């Protein structure tokens, strides 16, 4: 018996088990490869490596951060020659931030300890050799890097120069001031602007109807004054850092002056410890997550896009869930089986296969122009008439994006809900009806709670699809740069009519529309990573809820 076991104990289909796992392995490899690529590339946005000073054959030098190495185009395949890409920064002087250098041209590479890395509000990063620091009071400090100490074991201990601490302090101060100015410019002046807008519309209306306008013009005047005051205040504040700057030279020996007001971050790439680099990394990550973008979105943070994606996805789920569930209940429980129902089912299922851009076109044509236009005419006619025909809902916005995606993901929810309803044991339905419950009571009290986990599965799928969708959003309300968030402190807090930023569109915009594709590349990966993480988090949240619900039905199998 035992001897022949190898033949008899293996069921016939068994050898194919590994074959089915092959599919899984292929899938997993692809996912892992994608994640790895995104991780490695996205990570380079945050990491600050050493910055070499590269000497070339012709005697010139460049200072720049190594980006990548590749086989030089046109080099013979038998004897490949490489070239390297460096990010040299100082776009205003070098006209480009990135250069390719033929490896054969490189004669020497050294890490100058004085090299200072600067992340700036404008024109990208800069790598310079600082000479003099002028602080905010106008006092000059020479920039000297003392020799590092080397201990008996030969270990290198960098010394923090007072010069660099000074730079740090000045940058911190400049950042604080910049934030204060931004607060005035965006929030306070924004409020005044909104009020002015309203008053102007009211004024135009009053003029049109030949009503007294004195009060309104007076109000407008006070608002103008307030506006000017705030502007002045902002100027005053920004003057506080106007003096401070760094003077230095670039790789070509040209002298550069960089005001502290324009510096976001300063670091010494060739002197900092690993711990410092990690600190810098976290500081950059924090900016990435919580700050607004700069420099045509290629730098700074993604907060508005993260926020926009989240709000849109949640809002979409809130729209699609009730509609989908109600539709499914009707289809499953009330509609009479027949050719009509079958056609409707086929249509619903086919809806899932329609390219998403088609939904975008529909959203623009129907939601934005027809629905939005009607809403504007009915409720915002004053605004239209007295505000140069500026539409409120008759243009792309959060509401229309959510609605379009809700429509797109509707089949997923409908199908999942129908499945979940069918999966409720027949006994439960019969027990409820036999107890004298009406059909609706049975659906509400028994069927819906019991199918909640299945419905949530559908919602999870819908959310995952909705959060990653870009094409339809581009035409119904997502923009490259939105001045405001869809939720803020201004009544009515949730601004359904506002345009907003979205991670998916951000990726598209960075990758394909950015003027400086080299500068945008790491950002594309970092944003992709973030989008993936966001979708995973949303899903995990929904899955947790689903598992909680499922736990309630655990004993159901007896």
């Amino acid at each position: 018996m035992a001897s022949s076991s190898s033949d008899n104990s293996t069921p016939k289909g068994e050898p194919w088990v590994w074959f089915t796992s092959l599919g899984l392995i292929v899938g997993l490899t692809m996912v892992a490869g994608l994640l790895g690529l995104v991780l490695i590339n996205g990570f380079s946005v945050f990491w600050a490596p050493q910055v070499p000073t590269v000497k070339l054959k012709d005697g010139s030098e460049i200072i720049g951060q190594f980006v990548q190495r590749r086989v030089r185009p046109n080099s013979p395949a038998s004897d490949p020659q490489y070239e390297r890409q460096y990010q040299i920064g100082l776009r205003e002087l070098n006209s480009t931030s990135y250069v390719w250098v033929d490896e054969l041209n490189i004669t020497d590479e050294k890490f100058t300890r004085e090299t200072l890395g600067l992340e700036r509000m404008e024109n990208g990063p800069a790598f310079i050799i600082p000479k003099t620091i002028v602080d905010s009071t106008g006092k000059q400090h020479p920039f000297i890097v003392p020799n590092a100490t080397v201990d008996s074991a030969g270990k290198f201990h960098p010394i923090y120069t007072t010069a660099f601490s000074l730079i740090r302090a000045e940058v911190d101060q400049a950042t604080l001031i910049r934030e204060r100015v931004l607060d005035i410019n965006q929030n306070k002046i924004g409020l005044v602007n909104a009020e002015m807008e309203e008053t102007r519309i009211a004024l135009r209306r009053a003029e049109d109807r030949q009503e007294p306008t004195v009060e309104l013009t007076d109000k407008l005047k006070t608002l103008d004054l307030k506006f000017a005051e705030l502007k002045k205040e902002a100027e005053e504040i920004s003057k506080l850092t106007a003096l401070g700057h760094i003077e230095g030279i670039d790789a070509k020996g040209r002298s550069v002056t960089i005001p502290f007001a324009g510096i976001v971050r300063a670091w010494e790439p060739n002197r900092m410890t690993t711990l410092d680099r990690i600190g810098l990394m976290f500081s950059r990550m924090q900016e990435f997550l919580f700050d607004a973008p700069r420099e045509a979105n290629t730098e700074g943070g993604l907060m508005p896009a993260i926020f926009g994606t989240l709000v849109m996805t949640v809002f979409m789920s809130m729209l699609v869930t009730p509609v989908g569930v109600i539709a499914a209940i009707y289809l499953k429980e009330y509609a009479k089986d027949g050719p009509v129902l079958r056609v409707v089912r086929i249509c619903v299922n086919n809806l899932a296969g329609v390219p998403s851009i088609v939904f975008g076109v529909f959203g623009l044509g129907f939601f934005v122009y027809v629905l939005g236009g009607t809403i504007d005419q009915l409720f915002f006619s004053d605004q239209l008439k007295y505000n140069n025909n500026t539409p409120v809902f008759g243009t792309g916005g959060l509401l229309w994006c959510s609605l379009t995606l809700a429509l797109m993901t509707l089949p997923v929810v409908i199908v999942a809900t129908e499945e979940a309803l069918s999966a409720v044991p027949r006994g439960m339905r019969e027990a409820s009806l036999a107890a004298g419950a009406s059909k609706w009571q049975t659906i509400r009290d028994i069927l819906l709670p019991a199918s909640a986990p299945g419905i949530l599965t559908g919602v999870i799928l819908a959310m995952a699809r909705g959060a990653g969708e870009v094409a339809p959003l581009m035409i119904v309300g997502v923009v490259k740069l939105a001045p405001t968030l869809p939720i803020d402190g201004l009544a009515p807090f949730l601004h359904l009519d506002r345009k907003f930023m979205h991670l998916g569109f951000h990726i598209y915009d960075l990758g394909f529309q950015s003027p400086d594709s080299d500068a945008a590349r790491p950002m594309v990966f970092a944003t992709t990573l973030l989008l993936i993480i966001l979708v995973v988090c949303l899903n995990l949240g929904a899955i947790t809820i689903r598992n909680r619900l499922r736990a309630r039905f655990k004993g159901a199998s007896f």
Partner: protein
Amino acid sequence: MSNARFQARPATDQTGRPDFISIKNFGFWYGDKKALKSMSLDIPERQVVAFIGPSGCGKSTLLRNLNRMNDLVDGIRHEGDIEIKGQSIYDPGLEVISLRRRVGMVFQKSNPFPKSIYENVVFALRVMGVKNRAVLDEACETSLRKAALWDEVKDRLNDNALGLSGGQMQRLCIARAIANRPEILLMDEPCSALDPIATGKIEELIHELKAQFTIVIVTHSMQQAARVSDRTAFFYLGELIEYDTTEKIFMNPGQAQTEAYISGRFG
């Protein structure tokens, strides 16, 4: 023990209406398939009637027609009539819901809702719109007591009903079925998934419930039919072969088929 199945219970007082449920020339189709051939029988008030017969003979079909549970099935058709207290259950003026509130049902496979024990029991009252907590509490306790489950669950009324044992669940389903005090209780093989002790409890229960309810029970166990019922109906291939007092059916059946079935020669 060997002749236990012939120890029919003595007939209880017969003061109730003899044609409490009256099935008149009733025939039934699932689509084109005739499941019940035209049959007539009267079920007296506050008695236990057992339906017996081999599998697929139409016991459940008839039982499920008494509270129109078969309405859920597509393409059904019936002929003849069923009357409860003289009123046709197909009377267009009678709502199915109110019929089902008067006719409780216990299923073969216990089917508690994934809710708390308490909510399970008071479900029928809730759907009737009862909100008064005292009334619900009272109904919950009485029906659980009647279902002989109260002592086992009184401390965990708010626990999920799916955490009960199979037998407890079935008794819970009985409690649920009697909570709104129906007049009739239909039981479709209520003990088929239970051990002898739980079965014994439920049989005792049936005996007690008889004082208030008219009970129709489908069973595959001759002994059970003999133990709990006053009258027994024997079905075969969709046909009512014999309907008489349980004593008569088991001791002295009128038909050869009945005799063959209860003596275990087929089925």
